[in-house]
């Protein structure tokens, strides 16, 4: 419904028929909205760039991140033709390191969002579809995981796993382990709504099996809110990775992470802010692009939330 242009006091009728000019389905409608939304276009362009950078950092960097490129003699120097973003405490090129740092953020963000989306989504589908004890069991378990604030929980998990075993995998594990219940809840609610729709009743009456009903009839109609929240989560995961790496339990040197770069630059921050500010800027830009994407996708898929 494009009803949001009218207040509740306006007649419901007038806006309805005009809809006919546009494609009818939620997805094509959403795509139509998205293509025309500047927020989406800018966000998508930025995130595409960041993904390209993280996939092929060699195409974008200048001197690379090999330790041989660092020179203590030029530590904490400002912007120069050789070092676009200056150099850090060890005389390494900040620009190249920022370029190489994109990979961790992008991978942790996308993989964590995908894992929570798939696991939480699948469990939510089961809980919502089967109800009864399946629902009670899954919802209770989800509630327990939900009761642990994610940064605290991830900090605990990673502290226990230990720095020697820490890396992208353990960070994804720690973040996903505590984030799936949110997706479960959203999926469950959407499935319960979809389950009672007439077409699902009809499919059931026609003898369709539970698997077919779930995957063909319910899932396509319940997945929209999950996509919206997963996109928003993506940004939160990227921020969380940086925070955990900053706190020393996430990505470990010699791997490069923006959070880690911020931690390394911290002690000489006031005299040499550049090695901290550039990873900070790119971290924020990455999150911004994802948030813009999430905002646009939400507006397109769920006009009510606008």
């Amino acid at each position: 419904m494009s009803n949001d242009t009218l207040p509740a006091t306006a007649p419901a009728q007038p806006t309805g028929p005009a809809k006919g000019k546009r494609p009818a389905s939620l997805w094509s409608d959403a795509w139509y909205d998205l293509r025309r939304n500047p927020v989406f276009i800018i966000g998508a362009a930025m995130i595409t760039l960041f993904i390209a950078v993280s996939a092929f950092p060699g195409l974008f960097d200048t001197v690379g991140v090999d330790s041989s490129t660092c020179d203590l003699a030029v530590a904490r120097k400002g912007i120069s033709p050789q070092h676009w973003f200056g150099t850090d405490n060890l005389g390494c090129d900040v620009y190249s390191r920022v370029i190489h740092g994109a990979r961790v953020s992008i991978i942790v963000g996308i993989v964590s969002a995908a894992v929570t989306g798939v696991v939480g989504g699948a469990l939510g589908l089961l809980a919502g579809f089967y109800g009864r004890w399946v629902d009670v069991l899954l919802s209770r378990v989800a509630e327990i995981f939900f009761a642990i604030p994610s940064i605290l929980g991830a900090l605990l998990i990673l502290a226990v796993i230990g720095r020697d075993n820490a890396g992208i995998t353990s960070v994804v594990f720690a973040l996903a382990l505590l984030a799936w219940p949110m997706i479960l809840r959203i999926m469950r609610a959407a499935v319960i709504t979809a389950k009672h729709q007439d077409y699902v009743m009809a499919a059931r009456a026609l003898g369709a099996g539970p698997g077919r009903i779930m995957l063909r009839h319910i899932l396509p109609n319940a997945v929209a809110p999950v996509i919206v929240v997963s996109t928003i989560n993506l940004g939160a995961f990227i921020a969380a990775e940086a925070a955990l790496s900053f706190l020393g339990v996430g990505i470990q040197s010699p791997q490069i992470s923006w959070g880690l770069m911020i931690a390394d630059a911290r002690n000489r921050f006031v005299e040499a802010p550049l090695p901290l500010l550039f990873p900070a800027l790119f971290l924020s830009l990455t999150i911004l692009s994802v948030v813009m994407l999430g905002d646009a996708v939400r507006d397109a898929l769920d006009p009510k939330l606008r």
Partner: protein
Amino acid sequence: MGRYVLRRLLQAIPVLLGTTFLIFAIVYALPGDPLQALAGEKRVDPVFAAAMREQFHLNEPLIVRYGYYLRDIVSGDFGTTFRGLPVSTIFEGKFQVTLKLALTAVIFEGIIGIGLGLWAALRRGRWEDKAVLAVTLLMVSIPTLVSGFVLQLMLGVKLKLATGIDFFPVAGVQDGVRSYLLPGFVLAMVSIAYLTRLTRTSLMETLRADYVRTAIAKGMPRRRVLGRHALRNSLIPMVTYLGADLGTLMGGAVITETIFNLPGIGQQLFLSVYLRENPVVVGIVTVLVLIYIVANLVVDLLYAVLDPRIRYE
């Protein structure tokens, strides 16, 4: 109301048990020797290890060990530091710091978040509304880690250099309330943006509700329609948000206290992680999670006060 409170309290018990078990399981069931995990970097002496195994009941089945762990929590024993002090002694003096920080953040959140949200909702679709949306978009994109350092540099260091006046102390708590202003704002920033957006959407939704139209039709003055009829209903989702947000604040406090060198629980947690003092990490996380659960219980009860439909369910 009484029945609701009772039911909600009973429901909290399995969550408390489950969550403590989860924390317990994380410590003992994750790969690696739990003793080593508890000992951190130190080499474990075999004789000491045997004694520790006995002391921590590591030879008993998991569930029995959980029983011991739970008994310790209930009796207020959250473990022992390397120096042999109970973890609970670490909290002394640090809770106040974190509490003051969180309180400052919540005040910022309430005033700015709700204020901006209301303003945007009332100017829906105009440039003011769009500006608020754009600003909040930027605010949610800047993680605490970034805003902390940037504001520390700009408002703390540079402003002091430029004016000679120390408007915002950037480290420690020597300056009383002023010490908390900048860290409090940093901690609150992302939440302010979310609360602004939530308030805006929520108020816009209630402003369209039939009962608001009824209130206008009753001839109620505009202020009353807004303040009593619409706002009262908008508060419901906002209160729910504050409960969940406490978790974000706890996580953010670790970063903020570390950046601004505030001697609170968060900084202690960071230091303990840094020093690999895992018993302290586990103890602090357990306490914070318990606080979080209890706070959300309170929020749920508040929710019932605000929404009679829940109360009489």
